């Protein structure tokens, strides 16, 4: 299945009772198979923007277009079943086993039991969890990292063409986080899923993104590849953001990654 194309056209969102837009005049496109990171501090509107794609947040102005179709013209339930959704708190269903959690969307779509069982084992292996050991485990018995792996598996179980991730690794410890980031890159490139990833962590953004969308108070500051962001920041704000902290290491990392990318392209 071809990866989805997502476009934001002058999107604006205002929460009731607020005096300013949470998201204001945002326009950019995601190409099929890209991993785009929404980067910014808390309150910049990145999560709100993410959730307009699967209609968990209603739009006040503009359009969100998925594969050429305005999302408001689509049935929200069907739309969401075709788009993976991973959140920081994971939200695994506590009364279901790991396998049952992963099976949620496939069973909503009417897959057979054997199709589901096969897919569950496939996904557990894909996210690096031994199927026999984890299939019947309860969410309460999982570590933070394990839980989020299951969360990712659950999100991609029905082979969605797009994936929305809202600071998915924020609650995971630092060591596990690095492993998960690496795995995520591998998984989404294997599955060719268009991914929109929200974070406030600059290094995470640089590690994962094909392109980064820097946001501040509801508006887009810049949309660019990590390298371009680093070398040619569009505004002082972006410059201070990407050069903050350990930017020597970051410089090497960005260039190294760019080299790898061009080498494997």
């Amino acid at each position: 299945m071809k990866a989805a194309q997502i476009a934001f056209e002058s999107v604006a969102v205002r929460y009731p009772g607020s005096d300013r837009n949470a998201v204001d005049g945002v326009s950019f496109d995601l190409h099929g198979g890209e991993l785009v990171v929404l980067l910014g501090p808390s309150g910049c509107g990145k999560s709100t923007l993410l959730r307009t794609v699967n209609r968990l947040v209603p739009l006040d102005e503009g359009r969100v277009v998925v594969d050429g179709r305005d999302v408001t013209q689509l049935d929200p339930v069907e739309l969401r079943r075709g788009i993976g959704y991973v959140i920081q708190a994971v939200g695994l269903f506590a009364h279901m086993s790991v396998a049952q959690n992963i099976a949620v969307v496939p069973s909503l779509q009417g897959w057979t039991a054997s199709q589901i069982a096969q897919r569950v084992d496939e996904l557990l292996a894909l996210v690096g969890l031994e199927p026999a050991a984890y299939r019947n485990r309860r969410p309460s018995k999982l570590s933070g990292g394990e839980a989020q792996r299951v969360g990712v598996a659950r999100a991609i179980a029905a082979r969605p063409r797009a994936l929305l991730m809202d600071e998915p690794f924020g609650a995971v410890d630092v060591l596990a986080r690095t492993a998960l980031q690496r795995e995520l890159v591998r998984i989404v490139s294997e599955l060719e899923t268009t991914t929109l990833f929200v974070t406030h962590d600059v290094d995470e953004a640089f590690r994962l993104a094909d392109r980064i969308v820097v946001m501040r108070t509801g508006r887009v500051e810049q949309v660019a590849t990590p390298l371009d962001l680093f070398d040619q920041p569009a505004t002082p704000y972006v410059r201070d953001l990407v050069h903050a902290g350990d930017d020597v290491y970051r410089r090497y990392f960005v260039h190294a990654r760019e080299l790898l990318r061009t080498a494997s392209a």
Partner: protein
Amino acid sequence: MTYLAAHPARVAALAVSHLELVGVALAVALFIAVPLGLWAARRPNVAPWLLGTLGAIYTIPSLALLAVFVEWFGLGFTPIFVALVLYAQFMLARNVVAGINDVDRAQVDAARGLGMSPPQVLLRVEFPQALPVLIGGVRIAAIAMISIATLGGYVGGVGLGVLIFNGLTLHQPQMIVAGSLAACALAIAVDATLRLAEAKTRPSTSSG
């Protein structure tokens, strides 16, 4: 204990009719309270008002309410049945609301985001996790109802209350003891059974 020993069949028969009264009233009460609670749980402005009203009804002395119902419905099974259904609403609806609202909001968000319709979120995610709390409410309601149902002996000739009120009128303490003991035994048995059910519906904590 002597009345109990001398008339075991009579006490047993009254215990059965007592249980029948409470059982049927509980079933009908659930039929009303569960949808009511589910509806209110989603609405933060409605829930306190609803539970407040039901709570106020609960504080009406049962004998007074029963007297009004006897006026409306006559003697027998009906007035005590209606009173029981009404009293149970508070405990049941309150636990439905609490159980649903206690469900982790992240799970509800994830469920919606993955593509469950609102009824599916309710039935597949919220209700199963609210069930232990609901059964807890059923347990509390059942025990309260077993007690309140003794008033059925006053106006309806139903249940173990017959022994208690007859015993009072006839100045036969043994009858009162028999009726009270049997009602206690019923309450303990029902409590134990429902605790078991409650425990069974909690998500299992054993590792896979």
